[in-house]
């Protein structure tokens, strides 16, 4: 958000009618399965990323155009991304201290367990290994750009470790976020993140 992240220029994106329809259909599926979460595709944003946020009591997932229409990201990558972001809202694992959101490892764990199960119940599937390969291919070397202290503290902050952990199914999650465990959560009734925009 503040510092630069990998981008995919609009002219290098797959903006075909077929791709636009694929993204829309997938978002509709997620909205039907997880009705408490609102999904937005931000077409003009070229960052190869997506973000979950909690605004005015609403659970939002913003999918940036650089990721939604990236030619290297296909069905599996899109599904994993949507599950990860949904996991930030629906996981009951460890939370970020400063926002009403599950932390990274908790969101990943939810994506590959509860989220995947919820999708499968509706007859939808995805391949985790293919999803991770697509993301890795799209984002490139900038995936390993976290400070050593963060990379050591949490497997989700180190792409190679994250990939290994997810693929072998060892996504154990601590009770408190390891990268921000020293930071206390709000004691004001959990009403942080009430942002007026």
């Amino acid at each position: 958000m503040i510092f630069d992240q990998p981008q995919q220029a609009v002219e290098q994106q797959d903006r075909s009618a077929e791709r636009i329809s694929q993204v829309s259909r997938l978002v509709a599926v997620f909205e039907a399965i997880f009705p408490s979460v609102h999904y937005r595709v931000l077409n003009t944003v070229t960052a190869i990323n997506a973000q979950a946020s909690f605004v005015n009591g609403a659970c939002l997932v913003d999918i940036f155009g650089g990721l939604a229409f990236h030619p290297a990201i296909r069905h599996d990558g899109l599904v994993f991304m949507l599950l990860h972001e949904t996991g930030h809202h629906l996981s009951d694992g460890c939370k970020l201290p400063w926002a009403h959101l599950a932390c990274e490892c908790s969101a990943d764990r939810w994506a590959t367990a509860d989220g995947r199960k919820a999708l499968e119940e509706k007859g939808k599937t995805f391949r985790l290994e293919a999803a991770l390969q697509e993301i890795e291919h799209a984002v490139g070397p900038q995936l390993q750009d976290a400070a050593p202290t963060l990379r050591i503290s949490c497997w989700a902050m180190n792409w190679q470790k994250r990939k290994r952990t997810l693929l072998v199914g060892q996504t154990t999650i601590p009770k408190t976020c390891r990268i921000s465990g020293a930071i206390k959560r709000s004691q004001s009734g959990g009403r942080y993140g009430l942002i007026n925009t």
Partner: protein
Amino acid sequence: MGSLIPNGNDAEVINKLNDRFQGNKLINLRRHIKGKSDDFFASDRHLHRISYRLNIFPSTGNRPKGRWYLFLRDLIGDTNRTKILAALKGALDDEKCVGVHFWARFNPKTNPPDYDVDISPKHPDANGEYWITITLLCDHEIDAGISGDPSVPPADNGEKSPVQPSPLRWRGKSPKRALKKAAKKAVSKVGKKPAKKRK
């Protein structure tokens, strides 16, 4: 944080800010401000200098420190600078504020492209204690081509030493410590044996 691909520099700087503005580190910063009469977050102070004084900057990737200082100095905008300083001053002046949460998230609404800052309303608990959240709303990132300026930012008017107050201990005299010292001195004076007279 909250992203599919967490940005290491964002996460690092947000973690450092959150860590510094709560618990004992916040108490020690309050002690410095009161004990030294250092108006740390006065409206004429500069965010990049404050960041230097608090030793908060990202450490990996593309010229992180210089770009962070430049972002706080030139890119964040004066309105946002004033809003952040006012929020921090209010939080530090009020002992009922037990901490400040910092976050950054994407905000697609601004037109023309710009940064914005949102300060959460106070929601005191039963003891009247509360947290505030300062959220930086971004609709773009620091341009990758910006080289930044990692040099030590010039001092602000009215700063008091130490330039970088320790987050772990306060170097000034606390009233309790001063009283204890005075009491100890008085006792040792009473208990002292009179010197023997030399014949």
